[in-house]
């Protein structure tokens, strides 16, 4: 009986495990192997360099670390600004306000839009000569605020981070909303009967019950943002100089531009390991947070 039950448990994960082993574990193993070689991605001969690629990434590749720093900055903006926005909007739409169906639909437009459109529109808004934003500043009498938003090293990264957050908040909104919906209404009503104000209800019921969902969104945000690059190509191409360069662009540059396929594989693996560590810390911290509440 017990043996049968255990077998049944494994049957549940078996389909996932099979697909995963063939289409992820195996290529991953191969890529890791390639990371140990100096290989241009074409020739039949590969030169074994052991951990040489990894050593170079960690100790010599300054631009790689600069790109990590940029990505971390964008992620920080996304974690705070994007998720706060998403959470507030989800809270608003969870309540019985008018037009909430309308809002819910509209907020999901940015994630659906193609990066091509988003890039073109924001380039037009942020353009240094004919840009909407600069025109706006001139019109309201603050012409000194006008600038080349995307090619000024002081603003380029912030602009990219902002647009990325704008494009991504719909996902957080959606997941928060799904989370808020699973909070039983009876809890709110019970709290109201007890005479709790809106803030009290939020603090005592909504917030603690939403912590797991927040962790989920936070982890997904970190992963989504650290790996973002299509929008960055569309907006700045990683420039000016290295100011909006991100790790995935570096990996692509090694793979295509410099034909260092092995090095690109090693970069991908090191990048992933860092993300795993960050996410693990997040996960751990969230457990602590849950214990407090």
């Amino acid at each position, binding site marked *: 009986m017990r043996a049968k039950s255990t077998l049944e448990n494994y049957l549940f994960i078996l389909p996932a495990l099979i697909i995963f082993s063939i289409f992820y574990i195996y290529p991953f193993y191969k890529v890791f192997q390639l990371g140990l070689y100096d290989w241009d991605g074409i020739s039949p001969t590969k030169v074994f360099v052991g951990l040489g690629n990894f050593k170079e990434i960690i100790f010599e590749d300054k631009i790689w670390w600069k790109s990590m720093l940029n990505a971390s900055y964008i992620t920080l903006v996304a974690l705070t600004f994007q998720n706060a926005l998403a959470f507030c909007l989800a809270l608003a739409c969870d309540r019985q306000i008018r037009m909430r169906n309308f809002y819910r639909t509209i907020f999901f437009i940015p994630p659906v839009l193609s990066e091509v459109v988003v890039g073109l529109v924001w380039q037009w808004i942020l353009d240094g000569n004919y840009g909407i934003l600069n025109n706006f500043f001139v019109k309201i009498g603050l012409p000194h605020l006008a600038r080349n938003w995307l090619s000024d090293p002081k603003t380029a990264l912030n602009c990219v981070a902002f647009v990325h957050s704008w494009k991504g908040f719909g996902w957080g909104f*959606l997941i928060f909303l799904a989370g808020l919906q699973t909070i039983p209404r009876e809890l709110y009503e019970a709290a109201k009967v007890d005479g709790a104000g809106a803030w009290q209800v939020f603090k005592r019921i909504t917030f603690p019950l939403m912590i797991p969902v927040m962790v*989920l969104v936070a982890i997904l945000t970190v992963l989504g943002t650290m790996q973002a690059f299509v929008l960055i190509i569309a907006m700045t191409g990683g420039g000016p100089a290295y100011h909006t360069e991100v790790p995935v662009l570096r990996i692509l540059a090694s793979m295509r531009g410099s034909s260092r396929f092995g090095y690109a594989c090693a970069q991908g693996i090191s990048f992933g390991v860092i993300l795993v560590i960050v996410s693990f810390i997040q996960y751990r911290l969230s457990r602590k947070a849950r214990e407090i509440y």
Partner: protein
Amino acid sequence: MKHPLYYKTKKITLSILTHLFLLIVVASCLFPLLWMIGSSLKTQQTIFSDMSLIPKEMHWENYYHAWKQGGFSRYFLNSIFYTVSVVTGIVLVSSLAAYAFSRFNFVGRNLIFYTFMAAMMIPIPGSFVPLYVLLNKLHLRNTQLGYILCMINVGLSTSIFLLKTFFDKMPKELEDAARIDGCSKLGIWWHVALPLAKPVLAVVVVFNALNVWNEYVLALIIFDNRNLMPLQVALTTFQGEFITQYPLLMAGLTITALPIILVYFLMQKYIVKGVTQGAVVG
């Protein structure tokens, strides 16, 4: 006690402020959409010279040309087929696994779960080369099955993560009741757990549908036969190496965006209704 009018004014002001805030966000979301639709009705010559959102002359024929030139009829069907197959596959496979990770105890559970999570985080940029060679050996390259399986794998880890978080949150009482009634584990998963998880399943569906709908790099690499390719490939026709036919591209993008917005629209009601229907008290 304060005057009742105080509460009413406070409520109205708050409501106005909330709506104002929401409307600003709405405006920022609608602007690019309207720009895209407006641009799809312009010509290559006016698209960047006439900057108004509503063009003076409406070139509806752009949609016809985009549809014809891109060969949308075929690619549309392909993409619908891929999206439905992949999303169905992901929902079944990942909800089974996530349910097991959330509810059962078995040897290696945490190890396997964390491996899946790590997979979600480690991008393998060079993986298309081993994948290509592998698919070739399995005779799955240039087949729809090969593509579908690869795409199921792409969405698997994130979906498992999403679903497990929500399964963990869900009350177990109903499941216990079903077990006492003699339901098998699989029966409970299908009859009890999945209906309860509707809101998050809807999120999983939308997330993966968008992913599959927008994918084309993998498709280009593993398909030799253009007839098997998905919709996004049609869009690349308008973005030539040198010439981008912007109005046709915008028309194509608008056509492509519609089904996804529709999916979201359909799924939205599950995201919202989910629990009020289930009527479960935690």
